[in-house]
């Protein structure tokens, strides 16, 4: 009888269960939940000002009017998702990308310093890790500095970097890239120190029986063994180097970049503009992480598939 009951309640795997077997179902549910909460929040937070507007105009208003009004303000405290999407469409797709009001233009300004900083930070991080793994003195002398470098708030350092570099004639891209690199070398160093030390004793002994040089040990064993660690830390690094670039744009009064856009938005109370810049930054970070993920998958495939 239980068999019958089971058969009745679960026929062929339905659309829902198939959807939830992968990522799509769970993600959709979470996104929907966020959107619902967001709309509720937007109505709640924008309501007082909307009521004020209604009262000042001495119009009669009902619940429907209130909701409609709160979701259509020019400068809401919390803009509704669709307002942000409309603004993003306007500034990403409709504007020419050369325009100072195009988000694509600003995103490119930020992205260029992100990428420069990421590459510099990753190279620095790898070099530091190689040094630390091979020279005992470097681990003792550098490691405390590397760790304490990350305990200083980047917001405190960023203006100084910009001012000092500005004084020696470096403006625009380079100071921002340096702030990015400052943030993103850290996970690379930590990950790579671990990765370069990941070969086990047996694998090391094997090379010793061939009397391999330390150069050969590095290229034939330590480096390939560290590749999975490298990609894990690069994914973290690329995301925070974007944060670094945006932070680098805040104190400079920069004219371009997502950071400048955020700052301008908050000066003029343009909340919709702030949020759309924020969304663009998040989308940019996600695509950068995904891009590193794709490269990782190609590398893993080239290195034998299963690790």
């Amino acid at each position, binding site marked *: 009888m239980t068999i019958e009951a089971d058969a009745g309640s679960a026929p062929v795997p339905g659309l829902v269960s198939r959807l939830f077997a992968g990522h799509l179902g769970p993600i959709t549910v979470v996104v929907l939940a966020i959107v619902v909460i967001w709309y509720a929040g937007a109505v709640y937070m924008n309501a007082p000002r909307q009521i004020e507007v209604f009262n000042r105009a001495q119009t009669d208003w009902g619940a429907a009017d209130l909701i409609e009004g709160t979701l259509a303000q020019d400068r809401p405290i919390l803009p509704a998702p669709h307002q942000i999407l409309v603004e993003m469409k306007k500034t990403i797709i409709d504007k020419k990308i050369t325009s100072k009001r195009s988000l694509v233009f600003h995103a490119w300004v930020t992205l260029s310093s992100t990428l420069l900083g990421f590459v510099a930070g990753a190279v620095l991080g790898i070099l530091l890790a190689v040094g630390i793994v091979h020279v005992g003195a470097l681990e003792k002398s550098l490691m405390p500095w590397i760790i304490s470098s990350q305990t200083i708030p980047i917001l405190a350092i960023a203006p100084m970097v910009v001012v000092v570099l500005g004084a020696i004639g470096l403006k625009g891209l380079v100071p921002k890239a340096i702030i990015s690199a400052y943030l993103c070398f850290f996970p690379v160093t930590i990950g790579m120190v671990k990765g370069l030390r990941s070969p*086990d004793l*047996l*694998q090391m*002994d*094997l*090379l*010793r*029986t*061939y*009397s*391999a040089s330390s150069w*050969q040990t590095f290229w*034939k*064993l330590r480096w*390939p*063994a560290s*590749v999975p660690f490298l990609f894990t830390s690069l994914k973290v690094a690329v995301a925070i180097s974007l944060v670094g670039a945006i932070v680098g744009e805040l104190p400079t009064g920069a004219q371009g970049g997502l950071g400048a856009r955020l700052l301008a938005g908050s000066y003029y109370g343009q909340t919709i503009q702030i949020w759309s810049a924020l969304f663009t930054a998040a989308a940019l970070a996600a695509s950068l992480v995904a891009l590193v993920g794709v490269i990782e998958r190609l590398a893993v495939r080239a*290195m*034998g*598939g*299963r*690790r």
Partner: protein
Amino acid sequence: MMPPSMQSDPVSESVAAAANRDRESVVRARDLSLTFETADGPVFALSGVDLEIDRGEFVSFIGPSGCGKTTLLRAIADLEQPTGGTLAVNGVPPREARLNRSYGYVFQAPALYPWRTIERNVTLPLEIMGMSANERRAKAGEYLDLVNLGGFEKKYPWQLSGGMQQRASIARALCFDPDLLLMDEPFGALDEIVRDHLNEQLLRLWAKTQKTVVFVTHSIPEAVFLSTKIVVMSPRPGRIIDVIPTDFPRDRTLDARESPEFLEIAHRVREGLRAGHSYDD
């Protein structure tokens, strides 16, 4: 294909020279001791070890864990430093022998690099020694055939069974044609059926290549079946308590294990191990 060591014409060598070379000792230890300093005080891994291994022999070290058999093998390979006595490999100190690349070492685990194909794993030592890619490929084919792994060149280690992986690691140890093969419980992690099979293959390989083999094991049948000389060791401190010569024909099969001679030698090994243990109780 025959490995290069077989390609030299045996007739061109005089019988006397060959006999002389045969008597040359590959490993010679005199009063060898090795002590590890640990936080809990010194550990006497080896003590007063005297040992002679001649060219072409198949010598097994057998004993309970902790008896220093692996340490002795690692000392021969210059992976551990003796703290007393003398040790010579091919007539020179172990370090020099290692730099001369005079031995191939097979570890307890295959220790294949997962990002390299089987072919590139086998030719890793050749790569380190600076051989050209074409020569390396030829060698890989030759030695993979020798361990019956022909056709697996392009596979990755995870695509092979444990026994196949260990065979690949044997090919890797042989491919630069060292005259000494050091094996540290190479089949310890494999099941008995695979182990028996590999023992037979190893014996054939040894007969074919004329290498000197030093083999660490804790299996009595394995030691008796494979060896020309069995070195029985005992722990705390690690020392040699018996050296048992055997004289089975080189082309013996697994059936030899049923013969009275085999059982007699196995019995002597077991007696030796038991005598070694009585010191502990």
